[in-house]
């Protein structure tokens, strides 16, 4: 293999592939990035067996001889970053690769390309098309609600549901739930499919599609494939049952609090300063025109923050407590200047709805 590459294009693509590489993998091949080249293009492949990425490069690549190589990811990534020249020549002889510029030459011991597992490619069957920016927004507004404990593996990912034209992303950790809706832009209708995609893959997708306009999605039995421009991302699906989320979205909330989003975020942040691991609740006390947030941490102290609010649904004072971090997470992603928190009682979930494209449900902390 011999290719003269545009260094910055190759370096950027390499960094993208490195996002998948597990530098501490016990399998040496998985610590590597595979480079394949044909006359027409250069491909970079990386996988940790759960998630895989392939980046295809055509521009800025001058291939004089095709071939393949398996190179240590972090080392080559660092070299490409450090080099300053415009062009770099990549040549492969046997298992060692040579990276060369006018002033530098690196001969790098590679691994046997045959030891690298195959990374599934985007299929020939049609795909559902989505707008990239819209999908990124949907991911950003759901991904933080996924569960982190391995014990709830079905919740360690984001649920994709495609039903005709509608696409839904749902995430929950068992205490809160985020649901973002979007539209398919075109492409082949997927009919009705659903799949749980691991959090890591969702992060990778969010990062990797930012330059693209359109994203194509294929959901199979066991995998999800996403194609955006020159990047294809493969992810294994989480094999588990996602809970019936529709049942827990409240439909009978009879109290409404209209709040300034930024002011609420600031107030919750302040009140959260006096909570700790054991007492994670901030109490919200609503009156007609006012919201008082209070918190207490044993052996630390108490906090009280007051802000303006428009509250309707009851003339009495109304108390409910939430984990402040759950409120902070959602307040950071809602777009509107004001946000409406819908409530029912102190032991029923709170609901934040934005248009008909975003729903967020938070279960309260039980204050006795």
């Amino acid at each position, binding site marked *: 293999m011999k290719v003269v590459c545009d260094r910055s294009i190759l370096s950027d693509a390499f960094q993208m592939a490195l996002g998948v590489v597990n530098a501490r993998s016990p399998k040496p091949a998985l610590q590597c990035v595979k480079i394949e080249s044909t006359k027409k293009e250069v491909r970079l492949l990386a996988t940790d067996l759960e998630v895989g990425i392939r980046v295809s490069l055509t521009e800025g690549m001058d291939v004089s001889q095709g071939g393949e190589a398996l190179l240590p990811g972090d080392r080559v990534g660092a070299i490409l970053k450090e080099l300053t020249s415009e062009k770099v020549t990549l040549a492969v002889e046997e298992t060692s690769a040579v990276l060369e510029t006018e002033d530098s030459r690196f001969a790098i011991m590679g691994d046997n390309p045959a030891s690298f597992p195959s990374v599934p490619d985007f299929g020939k069957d049609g795909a559902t098309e989505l707008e990239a920016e819209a999908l990124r927004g949907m991911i950003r507004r759901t991904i933080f609600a996924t569960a982190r404990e391995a*014990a709830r593996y079905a919740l360690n990912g984001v649920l994709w549901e495609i039903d005709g034209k509608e696409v839904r992303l749902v995430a929950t950790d068992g*205490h809160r739930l985020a649901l973002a809706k979007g539209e398919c832009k075109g492409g082949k209708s997927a009919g009705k499919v659903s799949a749980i995609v691991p959090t890591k893959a969702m992060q990778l997708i969010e990062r990797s599609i930012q330059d693209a306009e359109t994203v194509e999605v294929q959901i199979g039995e066991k995998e999800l494939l996403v194609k955006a421009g020159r990047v294809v991302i493969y992810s294994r699906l989480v094999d588990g049952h996602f809970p019936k989320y529709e049942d827990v979205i409240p439909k009978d909330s009879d109290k409404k609090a209209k709040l300034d989003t930024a002011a609420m975020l600031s107030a919750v942040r302040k009140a959260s300063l006096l909570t700790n691991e054991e007492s994670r609740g901030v109490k919200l006390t609503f009156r007609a025109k006012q919201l008082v947030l209070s918190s207490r941490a*044993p*052996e630390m102290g108490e906090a009280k923050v007051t802000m303006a609010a428009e509250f309707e649904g009851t003339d009495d004072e109304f108390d409910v407590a939430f984990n402040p971090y759950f409120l902070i997470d959602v307040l950071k992603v809602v777009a509107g200047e004001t946000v409406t928190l819908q409530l029912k009682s102190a032991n029923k979930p709170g609901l934040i709805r934005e248009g008909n494209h975003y729903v967020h449900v938070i279960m*309260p*902390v039980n*204050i006795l």
Partner: protein
Amino acid sequence: MSVILLADIDAFFAQAEQVKRPELRGRPVIVGGRATDRSVVASASYEARARGVKTAMPVAQAVRVCPDGVFLRGDFATYSQMSQQFRDVCLQHTPLVEQVSLDEAYLDLSGCRRRYARLLAGGDGPISESAWPLLAARGLQHDILQATGLYVSVGVASSRTVAKMASDSAKPRGVLHVWPGREAAFLAGLPVGRLPGIGPKTAERLRRYNLQTIGQLASVSRELLVESFGAAGEFLYEAARGRGSAAVDPQEWVPRSISRETTFEHDTSDRQQLAAMLSYLLQRACRQLRAGGLTAATITLKLRYADFQTVARSCTLPDATDHDDELYRALMALLPRTYTRRVAVRLVGVALSGLSADGRQMRLFDEEAYGRRDRLYASIDAIREKFGFTSLVTSRAVDLMETHSRRRDTFELPVGCLSR
């Protein structure tokens, strides 16, 4: 000037036994196990201490030094009840009571001067300004004895640290008031290791600098202590002068952990037997958890092999809980990870930690089921309250019915589960 009292029940478990069975008064009582047992001494009466029995000494050794001792297994339910009475009496003296363990409570009487002045004015005219705390301490000691039959020692001082040390010096059955301004003089002759907050490591380090007594420690400058001990140097400097926090936090006492453990009569490698015992110990711990209105986030399984190697593994649950079944599932998942050697086991234990008395994060999907189980455990607790703990045996603990005889409140274990 703050007036802080520390009331500490003398040799609590052993004295409690003597109260329960007056014929044991004046005899060396050792709580921790029977004479044939393989456990350690949890508490020894002063008669037993005079013969050389110490806390945490193996029972077998205690038998050698005190062959005429009365060895008892202990009865946690009684101790717990007496501790509650002790707390109630303290609360009659001031609402500012901070119970720090079953047998120790700090009382803040700073605001009570006028009350005692009035009470005592009927006597020999007005009492002196410095005398009333001592009289208050005597009154407390008297009231606790009347209500529970237990003797306590009381230390009085202007800070918690000195009150604690005064009560230690007053033991048994004593009252000691360290006058304001006389703290340093009182502390000077005591060994540094007696200061609360100084562990064996720090004490050993201080001894290497030839600082044996608190008086010697007090002669070292603040700068030198900070240079040698970092932030702890500040603490040492203040503590050596008897200064320190006087704040008594009257919140409900939340223990850091709740644990139960027991030694088997014979070492065992039978996993069913281990599971059955763990289930029983867990149920006992959970009952205390719920009685205190607490939830636990973390569960620890402890296991001691026949060769005394001890291992413990913990697991933190996604949701804090006070339900036996959720904790039992976690415990059983820990068992194969903890019991890894092909060696018999002599002791098992369960500890619940990450305890919280505050609100519980409710669940989105199984809140209803959680509520149902809440009611189930409330009913189980009520039945056990009325008819005794063993009136209702659940889960794997049922296996114990074949191998252990039952008393009203406990299975007959060779070594009782005394720890909190």
